[in-house]
């Protein structure tokens, strides 16, 4: 086989060639299924800009400007290394490559993002159920122009205030489970067809004309988790365009929601496959020895994991943890030990490629840990679990990497990766729409003094911009004591 490239400088045709080789190996040997990529080579500033808005097409908001400045400062001060690539869960997959990557780095990021991430986006069931990769770009474009129009028509200040309130409560603008249950297959097909049509041309006029439903009474106890959606639907003080804006915001959050819960799996999957792909390229003679060393240098840099005593320790590295979990599946399939036979009988003697892809399809971070964390990883990582009680001035070690503590460590790690379980539990109990328009909010404490009251009340004050009538907050503490306040 001839070398893919002679020197570190890439050209457009050399990128084409690299991609062709990587794509063939990924599809034919590794049975990966991914969206067609759409590469864009960008400068460092634009990379930061895309990074700061977290989507290539985004409405304008001051917080993105702040993010940008923050990132810019961090990169300038060498606090973080620059992102070599960014990819989005879209179809075709928008993949941004940094201009000053060398040829090897471009091959690496293509394998990482355009194959690894993209395949995960397309294959993972949780992502596929919650997002529609085909329609998200037109939707975001639509939203961007909608926000711009609103700023012209109704004033930038009002738009900004609504977006501030939305961003503040963004963790509470998600439908975690789809509510309507359809049993009839025809009805279901019709509904999906209708949803698709609706998504393709989101009609602002029609959506805006709908009157807010005024039937909800407090007694009905809706127990709604999606605060923003409820407010958008029932708030008596909102104008139609404001309802639309909030609904659009909810949709964007819904799009990002599964990515937050699959971060470790996603990064691990991409890292795992870029390693396999680059190794394969080297085996087939496409890479020179020095090029492979350059790849290994970056690879180990990304997967670097310091121990807790190290001065650069920054907690668990999701790339490393994810990578090790997939690599473990491969190892167990190929060289199982006695212990593995006890813990993972379903993997023994199977094809590792199928098993790795099966894992990527069927889990999210928490359940993935539950299913695939092996005692060997716990031992290698020397994981330990602390229990902290704020009443004591010490913390206690409750589990170490000993085999008998394995299940406890696993449960702890599982909880570690469940982002939303670490937020205060807030629901809307109901609203008296025919009475004094009070909104009843329920805050439940899951562990003592868990809720940061200051941040809670600050953000509920922002909510008041969307619901300009009394807010009744029922605060149930850990000991089942109830405090009621009205804002």
């Amino acid at each position, binding site marked *: 086989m001839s070398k893919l490239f002679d020197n570190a400088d890439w050209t*457009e045709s050399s990128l*084409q060639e690299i*991609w062709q080789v990587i794509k063939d190996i990924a599809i034919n040997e590794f049975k990966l299924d991914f969206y067609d*990529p759409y*590469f*864009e080579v*960008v400068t460092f*500033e*634009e990379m*930061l*800009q895309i990074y700061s*808005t977290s989507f290539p097409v985004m409405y*304008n*908001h*001051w917080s*993105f*400007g*702040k993010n*940008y400045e923050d990132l810019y400062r961090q990169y300038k001060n060498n606090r973080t290394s620059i992102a070599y690539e960014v990819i989005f869960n879209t179809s075709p997959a928008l993949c941004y490559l940094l201009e000053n990557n060398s040829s090897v780095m471009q091959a690496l990021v293509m394998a990482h993002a355009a194959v690894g991430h993209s395949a995960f986006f397309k294959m993972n069931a949780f992502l596929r159920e919650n997002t529609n990769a085909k329609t998200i770009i037109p939707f975001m474009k639509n939203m961007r122009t909608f926000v711009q129009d609103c700023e012209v028509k109704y004033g930038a200040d009002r738009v*900004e205030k609504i977006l*501030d309130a939305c961003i*503040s409560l963004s*963790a*509470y603008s998600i439908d975690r489970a789809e509510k309507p249950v359809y049993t009839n297959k025809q009805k279901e097909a019709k509904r999906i067809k209708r949803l698709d049509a609706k998504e393709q041309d989101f009609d602002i006029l029609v959506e805006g004309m709908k009157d807010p439903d005024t039937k909800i009474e407090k007694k009905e106890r809706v127990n709604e988790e999606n605060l923003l959606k409820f407010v958008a639907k029932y708030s008596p003080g909102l104008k139609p365009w404001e309802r639309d804006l909030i609904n659009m915001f909810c949709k964007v959050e819904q799009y990002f929601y599964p990515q937050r819960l699959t971060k470790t799996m996603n990064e691990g999957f991409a890292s795992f496959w870029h390693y396999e792909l680059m190794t394969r390229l080297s085996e087939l003679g496409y890479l020179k020895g020095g090029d492979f060393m350059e790849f290994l240098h970056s690879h180990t840099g990304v997967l670097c*994991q310091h*121990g*807790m*005593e190290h001065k650069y320790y*920054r907690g668990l590295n999701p790339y490393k943890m994810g990578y090790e979990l997939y690599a473990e599946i491969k190892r167990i399939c190929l060289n199982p030990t006695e212990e593995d036979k006890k813990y993972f009988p379903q993997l023994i003697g199977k094809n590792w490629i199928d098993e790795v892809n099966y894992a990527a399809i069927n889990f999210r971070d928490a359940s993935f840990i539950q299913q695939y964390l092996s005692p060997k990883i716990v031992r290698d990582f*020397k*994981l*330990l*679990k*602390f*229990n*902290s*009680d*704020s009443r004591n001035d*010490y*913390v*206690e*070690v409750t*589990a*170490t990497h*000993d085999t008998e503590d394995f299940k406890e*460590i696993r449960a*702890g*790690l599982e909880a570690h990766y469940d982002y939303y379980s670490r*937020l*205060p539990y807030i629901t809307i109990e109901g609203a008296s729409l025919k009475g004094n328009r009070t909104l009843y909010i329920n805050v439940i404490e899951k*562990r*003592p*003094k*868990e*809720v*940061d009251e*200051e*941040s*809670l009340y600050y953000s*509920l004050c922002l909510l008041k911009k969307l619901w300009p009538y009394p807010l009744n907050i029922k605060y149930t503490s850990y000991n089942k004591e109830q405090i009621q306040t009205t804002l």
Partner: protein
Amino acid sequence: MVNIIDRRFTQKNESVEDRKRFIKRYKNHIKRAIRGAIAGESVKDFKFKDKKIKIKVEDMEDSLDIPSPQNNPDAGIYDYLHIGNEKYKKGNRVPRPRGVLGRGKQGSKDGRGKDEFEFTLTEKEFSDLFFEDLELPDMVKKRFTGDSYEIQRCGYSNTGGPSSLNVKQTILRAFMRRYALKKKMDKDEEKQLQEFLNKNKKKIHFLEDVDLRYNYRDRVDIPSTKAVMFLLMDVSGSMGEREKDIAKRFFLLMNMFLNRNYTTVDVVFVRHAEWAEECDEQTFFYGQESGGTVISAGLEKINEIINSRYNPELWNIYVAQASDGDNWGQDNNLVRDLLTKSLLPVTQYYSYIEIVEKDESEKKEVYDLFKEISGGFKNLHARLITDYKDIFEAFRSLFKKDKSK
């Protein structure tokens, strides 16, 4: 073939808009930070350049950051995990750690901590924010001196070179002419026209000479805004290093402010004790002199320079005077005369700052004199400065936008 697009040379730069909004939102904080940055800056190096600005996030009385409901990181009972255990065994008790072990360090959501938010303002943004709400006092003289002009397009002419032919206007007129000939005519008229054409052996041409129109350009004088700034400082023995430094900072601000508003600004340094002379910047600020103080000498010198070099008809004249308030007692009347009769009528703006120690602020004879004169002249303003931090405020108060307008 996969799509590969090189975006390096067609950058969209969309972050500009978000950045503008960010600066708008944090305007007050940034302004405060700018004031702090000036105080610490050495006089020599200070100029408008890209500038690092630090905002203390803690300081924000009204939290402008978007608050979101969060859990207390350290409250209650909870479990957490770490990697790389080398020494702990099950059941060990460790004093509640700060930083690495606990979650204290990760308290803020983005791991940045609540210290300072630092970013860089561009030169333009910086000077805009710096001089916001300030304006030049009115009565700016703009004169057509004839030495600055612009070539502008001034309609069309029917003569000119072929290169300046205006095709659109020419064709338009040709159409009009030919359309006019198509109007319904009586038989007589038609006959007449036909005869006329036959007699002159002419056809109706597509273009006639009368249709031709040329672009016309003309020289337009533009009013020139020239300004001269006189810096007048007392260099007598009583002016110490501190007073000079404060005066210098004030003059710097003044100079930058004028430079923003005028195309050309001349700066004339005049120093005085018992005598007065025009000098260069170096001697002005760092020259060592001693002696008594006679303000009128300085004023006379300025008057002399104006008469010889800066015609008040053509120049916008600004005077900034700094003094420590000492003056030879019998000189005050002369000062009053000079100001009211010759200087104030021709200057745009005359600012007087008196630099005094905090404890001797009652000794302000000259200040009172200027205050008294400023009753009759709106272009005279006087301020007392006791400390470095007053400089910016004094400057702002001198040039504050008149809200009544």
